[in-house]
């Protein structure tokens, strides 16, 4: 049997006293949290431990005694042994250390063997004498009881207290079926024992403890100031938010057309997303556990970075007359696009690429689309005096964050290329209708019919009228297919170009929204806070003393950090696989390749 004792490094040189900690259930190990020094009254110790247990929920108990004998304290050995009778427990650890030696000595007393402890000590001494004379072989024969081997694992208490072991278990697992591992229990014990670390050996209370705070109280003025300031700030933010939410919920905005429009514009989506974030941030309760804390911190940092980038953009935009330049460049650019489109249509109306089009249909479709372009050009000309103003006010929105500016830009692109979208929809609908009609009439040609109930093709005897009209329509649709297909192809390609551009914008917005900058910064500056596991280093392995190991944190890998702490967003991801996309294009269904997920709340 190997007994593992987790010993804090800060207590390596503590004065003699009682070891306070917790036995880890299910495993043969104990965690030492602090050392209570002399003088103490046992009754007060018990009372204090009960108080702390009630506050923290950790099952504290007195583990044993610790002795680091200095010159003034001799004869403590028997005193320490007698203490085991005062504090009831399963096993009593007697840890001692000599100044100048690195190793500890540990004796484990079981309650049954309490009386025999003295015998065992005597036997040991005798055994040692024998060993000197007889050699190693005789030593073993003398001991009848099992010798418990003890391993001391030294840990850095402050680091373990602040650290979080990954992968994070949020208390979902049933404690009866799979007990948390030893390491996890140890980390949880140290992290939950905050109330124990309030009293110090320099305090004037009845008890004097040594733990990590004894090396110097850690407090940062900035953190304290921030904590003080955050409360009224949270109040202000939540008040502003409530006004904003009230404005949004005015009944006018809940009418169907506006709501539909709002769900399509990415600016509105981004606004609602950020509102959710602000609600999370401005809740007055402090973060309950690690996940909560990380989420709040990530949101805050990403928001601040966003605003900083937006302010940079504003600085660039509003100086050197950039806005009037942009506005003046916009109308000629739109004109140029329209002219290109007109040329394209004229090309299609001729004999494009040598393909043979049906002249009449060609002319009809071409004229229809040309008229559309003409309408759109007039609309742009109408808007041109207002463009500069719109750009100026729109650029101001970047002070809410770069993501807003990008969403606004994406929306403007969508509005400016609305005619391409219209053309695409017309072409796609026409083509889809044609393909559908053709497939149905082809079945009629062969004398078959689609059975909707059985989802298969059955034979069917048609009437004369049905056959006649069906064949005529089939012939017409078949011969008009190349023309429609070509128009569809051209407009689909244009639409795909626009969609690609918008997709790039959305992806960058999404990246800014969800990238966990805070977690990465934590990983770089304070790697012990995000631990994937631990490593052990041998400190002292002398025969005769216990084995000493140093436990160090194994920090999380960078890509695991990013994966674990990504904020869930309304991320844009391609809805269909390539095969489905190609099939949809072929059949003529309208494609919306980027799909917005609704905001997930854990």
């Amino acid at each position, binding site marked *: 049997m190997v007994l593992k004792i987790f010993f804090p490094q800060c207590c390596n040189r503590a004065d003699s006293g009682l070891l306070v900690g917790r036995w880890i259930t299910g495993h043969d190990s104990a965690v030492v949290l602090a050392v209570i020094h002399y003088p103490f009254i046992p009754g007060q110790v018990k009372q204090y431990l009960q108080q702390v247990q009630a506050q923290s929920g950790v099952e504290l108990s007195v583990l044993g005694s610790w002795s680091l004998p200095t010159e003034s304290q001799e004869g403590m050995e028997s005193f320490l042994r007698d203490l085991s009778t005062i504090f009831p427990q399963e096993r009593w650890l007697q840890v001692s250390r000599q100044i100048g030696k690195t190793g500890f000595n540990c004796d484990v007393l079981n309650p049954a063997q309490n009386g025999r402890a003295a015998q065992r000590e005597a036997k040991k001494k005798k055994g040692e004498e024998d060993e000197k004379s007889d050699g190693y072989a005789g030593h073993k024969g003398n001991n009848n009881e099992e010798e418990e081997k003890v391993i001391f694992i030294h840990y850095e208490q402050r680091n373990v207290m602040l650290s979080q072991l990954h992968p994070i278990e949020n208390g979902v697992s049933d404690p009866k079926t799979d007990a948390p591992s030893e390491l996890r229990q140890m980390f949880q014990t140290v992290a939950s024992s905050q109330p124990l670390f309030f009293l110090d050996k320099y305090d004037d209370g009845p008890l004097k403890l040594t733990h990590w705070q004894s090396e110097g109280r850690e407090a940062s003025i900035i953190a304290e100031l921030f904590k003080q300031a955050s409360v009224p700030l949270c109040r202000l933010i939540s008040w502003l938010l409530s006004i904003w939410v009230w404005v949004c919920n005015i009944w006018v905005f809940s009418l169907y057309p506006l709501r539909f429009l709002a769900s399509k514009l990415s600016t509105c989506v981004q606004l609602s997303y950020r509102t959710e974030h602000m609600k999370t941030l401005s809740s007055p309760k402090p973060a309950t556990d690690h996940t909560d804390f990380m989420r709040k911190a990530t949101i805050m940092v990403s928001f601040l970075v966003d605003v900083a980038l937006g302010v940079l953009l504003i600085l660039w935009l509003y100086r050197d007359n950039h806005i009037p330049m942009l506005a003046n460049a916009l109308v000629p650019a739109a004109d140029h696009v329209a002219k290109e489109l007109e040329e394209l249509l004229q090309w299609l109306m001729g004999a494009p690429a040598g393909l*043979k*089009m*049906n*002249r*009449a249909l060609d002319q009809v479709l071409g004229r229809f689309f040309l008229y559309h372009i003409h309408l759109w050009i007039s609309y742009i000309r109408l808007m041109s005096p207002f463009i500069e103003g719109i750009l100026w006010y729109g650029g101001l929105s970047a002070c809410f964050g770069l993501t807003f500016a990008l969403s606004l830009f994406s929306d403007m692109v969508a509005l400016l290329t609305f005619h391409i979208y219209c053309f695409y929809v017309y072409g796609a609908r026409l083509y889809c209708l044609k393909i559908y009609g053709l497939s149905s009439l082809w079945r*009629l*040609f*062969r*004398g078959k019919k689609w059975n909707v109930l059985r989802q298969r093709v059955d034979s069917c*005897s*048609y009437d*004369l*009228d049905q*056959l*006649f*009209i*069906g*064949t*005529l329509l*089939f*012939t*017409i649709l078949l*011969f*008009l297919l190349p023309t429609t297909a070509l128009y569809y192809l051209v407009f689909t390609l244009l639409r795909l170009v626009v969609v690609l551009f918008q997709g790039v914008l959305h992806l960058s917005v999404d990246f800014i929204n969800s990238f966990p900058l805070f977690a990465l910064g934590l990983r770089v500056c304070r790697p012990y806070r995000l631990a994937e596991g631990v490593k052990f280093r041998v400190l002292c392995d002398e025969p005769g003393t216990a084995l000493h190991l140093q436990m160090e944190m194994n920090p999380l890998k960078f890509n695991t950090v990013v994966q674990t702490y990504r904020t869930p967003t309304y991320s844009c991801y391609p809805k269909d696989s390539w095969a489905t996309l190609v099939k949809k294009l072929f059949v003529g269904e309208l494609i919306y390749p980027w799909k917005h997920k609704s905001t997930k709340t854990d």
Partner: protein
Amino acid sequence: MPAHRSAYVLVVRVMGPDSAPGPAVPWQKVLWEHQPYPDNYVDQRFLEELRRNEGIRQYHYWAVVREAGFVGQQLSCVAIFITLWLYMEQGLLSPEKLLLTTLVCALLGYGLHQALTFQVESGCEPRTHLADLQSATLFLSFTFGFSPVLKTLTESVSTDTVYAMSAVMLLAHLVSFPYAQPSPPGSLSLNAALFASVCLASRLPGALHTFAMLSCALLVFALWPCLLQKLRENAPNQFIGVCVGVCLGGVGGLGSLSPGGAVLLALALGSVTLLCPLLLVRLQKQKDNIQGPWDEAEIHEDLSHFLH
């Protein structure tokens, strides 16, 4: 020694089906009983149940010729249609004349059809005149409305492609025509014929030409077989006469335009109507089907006892 000999004798008896008489146990053609014969043993009743050429039909030459005449008739119909189209394309026939002729023929045919129907029986649910009028109006208006569109359909397609498509479609029509029961028209045959006629009609110079051609196609391919069916049922002798008449008309019509075509058509008709039945009857004698108990079981359900 004696025991061995008797065993030897026993074995010989069992294994000898064709030389020595078998043991007293008669052989049964079953496998579920343990018999002293090997599993693949058959006695002299082998191949008793073989039946040769069961249900074979004896064809008589002239009956087959009469049926083949129908096929020839259909071939001539196609030829007549192509002739009319050639006339229209060369401008020798004006669309109004064709339309008029078509309408007159349609009315005549309709009258004949009704007469034949009334003659036989007036029992089961005849189509009312109103329904027929409705159908006719629908056809005509639809065709008239779509003829400008139909005319421009094959403008950009090359002539060779059009001819090839039409030929393939007409061939498909002939192959898939329901010769046994032409009255509900087969979908594929009618559709193929109409497709071919649309392809050809769109090559004509005007929209009215297209309309006329399509009406003619409708008459020839959709309505004519119905009349023929009625004739075949009710007046078989006249039916033969009509077939012969149509064949001659086809050859003659094609001959007025191109003698080579007429010769080809005559040859085709001759072979289909006269040569092929001869071959059939001759080859029928070579037929050698065997049926026996090894065939798959066919269930002949007599559904009539359900009706009582």
